[in-house]
């Protein structure tokens, strides 16, 4: 689960990581009131959970109080990478001497957390990793011990000659480490960590991603939930035991198993179509679940055809078939459905679907071919 910058900063503040003076606003008027309280100049920052906000024009420095309302209003009307901006963070602008990077994530191949630090802060860490990997200091963290003070100190002294500044930096690293372990994070990141002209550190930006699998250990994190419209659909799917991700094509898919669902999307693309979604119905397949799956897919207006690809194991094909039939009965519009049901109880399933409008297919390739052809045909007819 990703959270907003302002939410991550609240956690930083709780752990004693220095953050600037700033407040969240939902209207231009609120933004102005905050600016008046903080004093000019201020930085107004769009709160959307995607990278590249600055490049998209979602972060603006404002010098004069009379400009705060129009700038805030402009940012609040923006959509960044498809996500509408609903809140802005109004922050007191500070005089920066240098910007650093500090983050902790998981090194999957070493199966351990890793701390990354760099004097080349402010830009994308992946970019630094690509162009000048030597500028990144890495420290593997032993999971039973967490980041040790001497390790944090050594990083501080690699980056700074001034002992006081080096110590402050390592202190921040240790606090970041504590958040990472306390809250079961996948990522905690300060980019940039600014050193001001008065030799103080401030987290200018903050990013925290919580491990979805660890959320049940931290009920307090529920308060940070704030889903976009698209995510709302994904969450709704999840509550029904489905896993859904919207894509931009027109072939809607219902598949059992994440790997097979991805392979189905890939085959659609390979055979000239565009998948509208990823949807894994999981291990069991009650009629209700099928109906929910169909409704979620049909909420996407681009969908021209539905492709069902089931390899029955634990999932019984007859369950899917009867679920499909009752889902079709409840539909408010007609849409072609191609179904490939193989494995456990497939003969029963085929008998159930006999006489229905569902177009049968024997193999995955045949099903995808039929669905792609139908999608193209329906598009041409429009």
């Amino acid at each position, binding site marked *: 689960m990703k959270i907003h910058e302002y939410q991550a900063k609240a956690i930083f503040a709780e752990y004693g990581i220095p953050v600037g003076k700033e407040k969240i606003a939902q209207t231009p008027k609120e933004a102005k009131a905050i600016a008046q309280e903080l004093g000019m100049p201020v930085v107004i920052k769009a709160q959307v959970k995607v990278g590249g906000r600055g490049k998209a024009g979602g972060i603006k420095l404002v010098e004069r109080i009379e400009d705060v309302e129009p700038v805030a209003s402009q940012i609040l009307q923006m959509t960044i990478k498809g996500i509408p901006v609903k809140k802005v963070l109004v922050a007191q602008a500070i005089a920066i001497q240098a910007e650093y990077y500090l983050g902790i994530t*998981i090194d*999957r*191949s070493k*199966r*351990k*957390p890793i701390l990354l630090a760099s004097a080349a802060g402010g830009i994308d*860490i*992946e970019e630094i990793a690509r162009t000048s990997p030597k500028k990144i200091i890495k420290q593997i963290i*032993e*999971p*039973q011990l967490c980041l040790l003070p001497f390790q944090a100190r050594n990083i501080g002294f690699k980056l700074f000659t001034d002992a006081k500044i080096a110590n402050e930096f390592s202190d921040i690293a240790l606090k970041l480490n504590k958040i990472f*372990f306390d809250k*079961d994070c*996948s990522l905690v990141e300060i980019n940039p960590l600014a050193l001001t002209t008065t030799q103080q550190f401030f987290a200018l930006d903050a990013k925290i991603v919580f*491990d*979805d*699998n*660890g959320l*049940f*250990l931290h009920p307090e994190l529920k308060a940070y939930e704030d889903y976009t419209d698209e995510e709302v659909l994904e969450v709704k799917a999840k509550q029904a035991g489905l*896993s859904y*991700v919207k*894509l931009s094509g027109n072939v809607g898919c219902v*598949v*059992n*198993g*994440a*790997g*097979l*669902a*991805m*392979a189905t*999307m*890939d*085959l*659609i*693309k*390979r055979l000239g179509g565009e*998948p509208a979604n*990823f949807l*894994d119905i999981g*291990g069991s397949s009650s009629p209700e679940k099928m109906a929910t799956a169909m409704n979620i897919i049909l909420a996407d207006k681009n969908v021209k055809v539905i492709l069902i690809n089931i*390899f*029955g*194991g*634990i*999932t019984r094909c007859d369950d899917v078939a009867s679920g499909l039939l009752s889902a079709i009965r409840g539909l408010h519009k007609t849409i072609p459905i191609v179904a490939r049901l*193989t*494995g*456990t109880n497939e003969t029963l399933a085929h008998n159930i679907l006999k006489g229905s409008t569902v177009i049968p297919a024997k*193999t*995955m*390739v045949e099903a995808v071919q039929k669905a792609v052809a139908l999608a193209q045909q329906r598009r041409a007819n429009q």
Partner: protein
Amino acid sequence: MSILVNKDTRLIVQGITGRDGAFHTRSMLEYGTKVVAGVTPGKGGQLVDGIPVFNSVYEAKKATDANTSIIFVPARFAIDAIYEAVDAKLDLVVCVTEGVPTLAMIKLMDYLKDKKTRLIGPNSPGLISPEETKVGIMPGQIFKKGKVGVISRSGTLTYEICSHITQAGYGESTVIGIGGDPIIGTNFIDLLKLFNSDPETEAIVIVGEIGGNDEEEAAKFVKRKIKKPVFGFIAGQTAPPDKRMGHAGAIITGGKGTAKEKISAFESAGIEVIYEPSEIGSKLKTRLT
């Protein structure tokens, strides 16, 4: 021959009295698996399908001489169940449970490094040595005893691919679902080693997906060490970045872990890339008799 599990595998089911545990215990028994004990703390003394239930893995092992366990307990208790199986010194533990916290897994893997127990999973469909034993949730009927070793991060996609291997007449030596999580007990390389030294395995199929770089590491290993023909499939070529595709580990982050990178790693290691599951049969024909 097969790897990791065979007809002599003596299995404990942890969470045998739960809905999933009971269901799959019956299915494994029907396949011929020697399920010798179940464990559910507090339900010791009961019977499930004639299988005795114990309060602890230690007691179950002591009473039945079991060497392997499969875990069906909820995510909240799964990590503890794995530690318990490791403490009882079983050879192999298979964790089917999905949703195990990543940091807890990281700590567990650190603990496991000098222990004799091998962990498969979590979030794994288990493994099968066809016509010998099934320690998992896969439908047994699609597999046939044979000479192709299969290692996969997926479940149903593996069934799809194995059904083509079976139809092509080759069959499988052992099929292992290593699990869809970012941190798992056994990775591709561990199993490539085992398949490489198994005389009955003549070809190996790797079924990977987006996220992490296990496939790239596996490719490097294949190039250096494996002389048997290796085939590879990667799911998720059309997956968007920063979106989890069902599995916790199937996510492209920071532009890393894409299908494209993995496919090119396969190609440069001499692994024959399969672009759609049904191709595996004809590709195997070009390399096997």
